């Protein structure tokens, strides 16, 4: 029999509990809207199919890749920060914020295209869901980019925030990503 000499490393939630509570509530909100979308699409299949046909899947695919890349870069940045390579982390975070901004610009163009056609939340049930979900998510990306830019700036000036804060920012960003990963196929593909 071997006695266990090294206790397992304590399980740890990366990021502040307050942020995780926020993340969970955001996931709940998005989750309910996703299920609502699915129910509405089932009840009005023709309307939703016609609506989907007007969306630009190519741009949305590109956007998905930008968000995923930003998430991966954030993970890399945090690894650097954990090893005190602050400036390197700062540059990576700036890259992540840039990728996020790419998403924002691309999405803003897409939204502008629809709004210019006179489409609003009240045009149809499909457009309500499409515009509502996409712009609600857009606001989250915007908030995320602001937070990432702030952390990046602090790191580049060699005064990084506490690791707990950076983890929290990262967790929030990944949540925005996670939500998009479900939103994208639901609205653009199915």
């Amino acid at each position, binding site marked *: 029999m071997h006695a266990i000499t090294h206790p397992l490393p304590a399980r740890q939630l990366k990021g502040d509990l*307050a942020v995780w509570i926020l993340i969970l*509530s955001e996931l709940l*909100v998005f989750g309910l809207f996703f299920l*609502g979308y699915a129910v509405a699409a089932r009840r009005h299949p023709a309307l939703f199919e016609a609506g989907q046909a007007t969306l630009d899947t190519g741009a949305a695919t590109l956007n998905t890749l930008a968000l995923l890349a930003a998430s991966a870069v954030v993970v890399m940045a945090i690894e650097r920060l954990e090893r005190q390579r602050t400036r390197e982390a700062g540059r990576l975070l700036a890259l992540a914020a840039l990728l996020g901004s790419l998403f924002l610009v691309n999405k803003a163009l897409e939204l502008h295209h629809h709004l210019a056609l006179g489409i609003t*939340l*009240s045009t149809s049930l499909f457009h309500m*869901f499409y515009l*509502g979900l996409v712009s609600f998510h857009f606001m989250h990306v915007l908030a995320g980019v602001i937070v990432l830019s702030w952390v990046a700036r602090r790191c580049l000036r060699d005064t990084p925030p506490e690791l707990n804060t950076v983890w929290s920012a990262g967790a929030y960003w990944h949540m925005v990503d996670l939500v998009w990963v479900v939103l994208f196929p639901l609205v653009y593909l199915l």
Partner: protein
Amino acid sequence: MKYQSQKVARLYFMAAIGLFTGQILFGLILGLQYVIGDFLFPAVPFNVARMVHTNLLIVWLLFGFMGAAYYLVPEEAERELFSPKLAVALFWIFLVAGALTILGYLLVPYSGLARLTGNDLLPTMGREFLEQPTITKLGIVVVALGFLYNIGMTILSGRKTVINMVLLTGLVGLAVLFLFAFYNPDNLVKDKYYWWWVVHLWVEGVWELILGSILAFVLVKVTGVDREVIEKWLYVIIAMTLITGIIGTGHHYYWIGTPGYWQWLGSVFSALEPIPFFMMTVFAFNMINKRRLNHPNKAAVLWAEGTAVMAFLGAGVWGFMHTLAPVNYYTHGTQITAAHGHMAFYGAYAMIVLTIISYAWPILRGEKAANQRAQVLEMWSFWLMTVSMVFITLFLTGAGVLQTWLQRYTDDPLPFMVVQEKIAPFYWMREAAGVVFLIGLLVYLYAFVARGKPAEDATAA
């Protein structure tokens, strides 16, 4: 009591309890009018009695909030109140204006009151809960500004605790949102849309900040749990309140002429509105379980626990019951709404004011807690009032379910008045529960008598 100026709170608490008693008496009149239609007609018609019932509720809660603020703000800020004199002066202005308004309701026909107070100049009267003459509304604004000035100066020049800052944001929000009471366009849809900015954003927004900070204050005091722990939970709970509650306003925008998307927005966000109330319940009981001291004021602890539970049941569970748009389509404006309103207001706001009074009153008299007998009486009154409120809610829910079925849902819907007669047994039972509530209130009042002479006077003698 650490600071002399906290004493001002006593005046406010006394007025609150007095007006609360008035509210209950008019509640009983209303309940009787539901079953004996011509009771007191035409001297006190239903609309007048209801206006008195709801306006007294709002005013006594405001007195309670102000009293709570005058009590806890100096203690948190660690300094005397900026101006105790201003607090006393505002008290009398508010009380006299309030009393005159209530007398106006009772003695002058409402249209006469409108003429007398020049409603034509700036028409704001005759909307639910905002029935006060315009001049009274202006008075409320003046009192609120003076109060905010007094509290704000105290907080900003003293120790800035989380409890004080949250209370201050809540009070500022209360005052700012009340300004929408002055916006009354001819367009009914716009009128209703912004009317909810006062009503909903008060009770499901800024008032919850006030509730949260008062509860947090009492918990800090009676449990001895580290302030740091209580404060961060306070932040998270009220953050959840606003995150769900602001867009949750949408559950009032289903059927008043607003766009259809509010049905989805309102349903999703208000489905999550019970979460902060649930967190508050778990939080309060956790703190009390982890208490590091046994506070002698058992009654105050009971009120705090009661608030946490009843706010969750009344606002959370009973709110959720009819908040989803497809359900609300049938229940909107029935006795289900009344059931929810009664338990939510009692559980969240009446009880939090009674909590702070229970905690602060003995201290204002120079003792830590009331004597054993007075506390037992107070706890009896807690159970009598709370249990009868549960029954009032259950009976109104029964009435509401039946009403929804007969008048809204069946293939052959019946007219309103026919349905009202069919559900009269529920109204009778509600009235009986109301009488028990009044008995509970009388026990509560008697508990003040049973406290005997204040310790301060005793030492002085």
